[in-house]
């Protein structure tokens, strides 16, 4: 599946960030059991990273099809608002969960129809729901933060299974299922084909429209799941803020994971790793005690470094900085393609 070599920049980045976190806060790796669940900073990284991991699973497939789904944050807010409002109205848990997930599926289906059948550009098509969705969520909650105390729903945010927080369990199970689905069947390959060249895939006999419909609907489903978790976590639906800007974190996670925004080859596992890297950084900033004015600068600097490390993979960087490379201007250009470079410079 994924060679360790391809994952090297991300794994190194994660190791460096975890090491820096440990330097800033020596208790970083301490884990203890609190009220029957694991409790510690590393657990926080996974627990807080779970919603973005879940979004990233859906987002990876959308991006692999050469699209993007900007609406996931708003869909989170809508699903959360639906779940909270129905819980307060007294509906049973099964109905609440089903309704919230159906909201996500419908939103995804709408995006899919706009992209696959009406041929809108994905960024425009999903922008519609990104803007309108939050408004719809506010209509559902009537502008309030709808709070609830239903233990069943709260379990999805703060409960645990064998000591592992529920959000992490859900993200892991969904990740495994999604990877099996795309890699044990031809689905992954078909999505990549559509992403590389949609018309060629169509001429080759693929039903591109149904494939596109599938990836956007799946992304909507993932967003609804993340929305349920976020709502259950704070025991309330905050339509203004739930999932705000998380679409950008999800896209970033996919990009850090090495999936190209131009579609084609993708890796769900690497995107989930990307989400963990982002959250490890966020948690580290919280633990470090830096003044909040530095949060975004630190985050941006780290991300630039990860992306640079990724685009000039080590061999490529070697070529870039090698003395004499400057004399031949075509050399650094070629070094931007690591695979081509590897063949020429087996360093």
């Amino acid at each position: 599946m994924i060679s360790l070599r391809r994952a090297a920049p991300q794994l190194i980045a994660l190791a460096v960030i975890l090491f820096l976190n440990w330097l800033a806060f020596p208790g970083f790796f301490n884990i203890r059991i609190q009220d029957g669940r694991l409790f510690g900073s590393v657990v926080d990284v996974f627990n807080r990273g779970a919603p973005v991991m879940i979004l990233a699973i859906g987002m990876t497939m959308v991006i692999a099809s050469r699209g993007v789904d900007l609406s996931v944050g708003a869909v989170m807010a809508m699903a959360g608002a639906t779940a909270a409002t129905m819980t307060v109205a007294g509906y049973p848990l099964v109905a609440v969960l089903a309704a919230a997930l159906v909201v996500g599926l419908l939103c995804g289906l709408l995006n899919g129809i706009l992209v696959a059948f009406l041929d809108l550009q994905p960024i425009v098509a999903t922008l519609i729901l990104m803007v309108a969705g939050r408004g719809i969520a506010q209509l559902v909650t009537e502008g309030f933060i709808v709070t609830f105390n239903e233990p069943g729903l709260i379990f999805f945010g703060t409960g645990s299974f064998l000591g592992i927080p529920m959000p992490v369990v859900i993200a892991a199970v969904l990740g495994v299922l999604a990877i099996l689905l795309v890699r044990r069947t031809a689905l992954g390959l078909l999505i990549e084909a559509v992403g590389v060249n949609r018309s060629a895939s169509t001429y080759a006999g693929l039903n591109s429209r149904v494939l596109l419909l599938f990836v956007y609907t799946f992304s909507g489903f993932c967003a609804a799941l993340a929305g349920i978790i976020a709502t259950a976590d704070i025991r309330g639906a905050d339509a203004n803020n739930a999932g705000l800007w998380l679409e950008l974190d999800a896209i970033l996670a996919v990009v850090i994971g090495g999936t190209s925004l131009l579609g084609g080859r993708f890796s769900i596992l690497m995107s989930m790793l990307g989400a963990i890297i982002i959250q490890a950084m966020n948690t580290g900033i919280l633990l470090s005690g830096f003044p909040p004015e530095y949060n975004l600068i630190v985050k941006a600097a780290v991300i630039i470094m990860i992306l640079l490390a990724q685009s000039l993979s080590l061999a490529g960087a070697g070529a870039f900085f090698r003395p004499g490379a400057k004399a031949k201007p075509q050399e650094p250009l070629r070094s931007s393609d690591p695979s081509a470079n590897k063949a020429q410079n087996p360093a």
Partner: protein
Amino acid sequence: MRHFTRLLLGVAAGTLMAGAASAADLTVGFSQIGSESGWRAAETSVTKQEAEKRKVDLKFADAQQKQENQIKALRGFIAQGVDAIFIAPVVETGWDTVLQEAKDAEIPVILLDRGVKASPDLYMTVVASDQVHEGKVAGDWLVKDVGDKTCNVVELQGTTGSSPAINRKKGFEDAIASHANIKITRSQTGDFTRAKGKEVMEGFLKAENGGKNICALYAHNDDMAVGAIQAIKEAGLKPGTDIKVVSIDAVPDIFQAMAAGEANATVELTPNMAGPAFDALEKFKADGTLPPKQIITESKLYTQADDPMKVYEEKKGLGY
């Protein structure tokens, strides 16, 4: 032709509205920013209640966060010849022209909740809270509550760079400045939201020996405090006892937490900006007394001793 008919209809509707208005003593136009937060919604409903109580005919316009809508609403009020205009300005600048138009029409303008950058003679007064004072009230409560004991405080700031975050931080720091036993040991932004408040508090708890080194939490708004309270509980500590919780705004949910003993104190940012504004306006209409250029609303402190459930019931229906 169609436009003309529409215009006629509009004029007719306007005349009808003016006719209805004449039954009340005063007609006041109120241009509200929108309903972006629970507090804003509460401000709208309290303003409507105050108007009803005083038999004022209130013309309400929701600007949906757009200055152009507010300027349009103000021009509409001027054209209708209202007795006064209340406005909660969405931004600080760009008001000179429309305020001059109101002044030329001799309609007094009162700013609610926020100020503008315009010549002070273009409006009558600003009714607003003193955010530095809010922070100070919270700090004073903590100073009194802990006495001489050492107390390490963690702070959840509002959105970085926003004026409430800057001012509420400053006020709190002023209050504890002369008390060496109280120190802010950690301070991070929670963006005024529950989710971030919870996440940041989780970080604080781990960084401060599982929360054992934290004596009190100061949150720049109640929502962050509500999120943090959950984080404290999940860490196996008792909020309100093991870690004291003081915050600002006085939204209904914090009173529920106070009733359960999980929060200790909150400082009210009153949604009743219109009450003092109506008072000033009535005085001006009666004998021409001009109010001071700035009317500061009260920053009232609520603690567990103030029958939180009763306050909760009172505030619940206001649209928070």
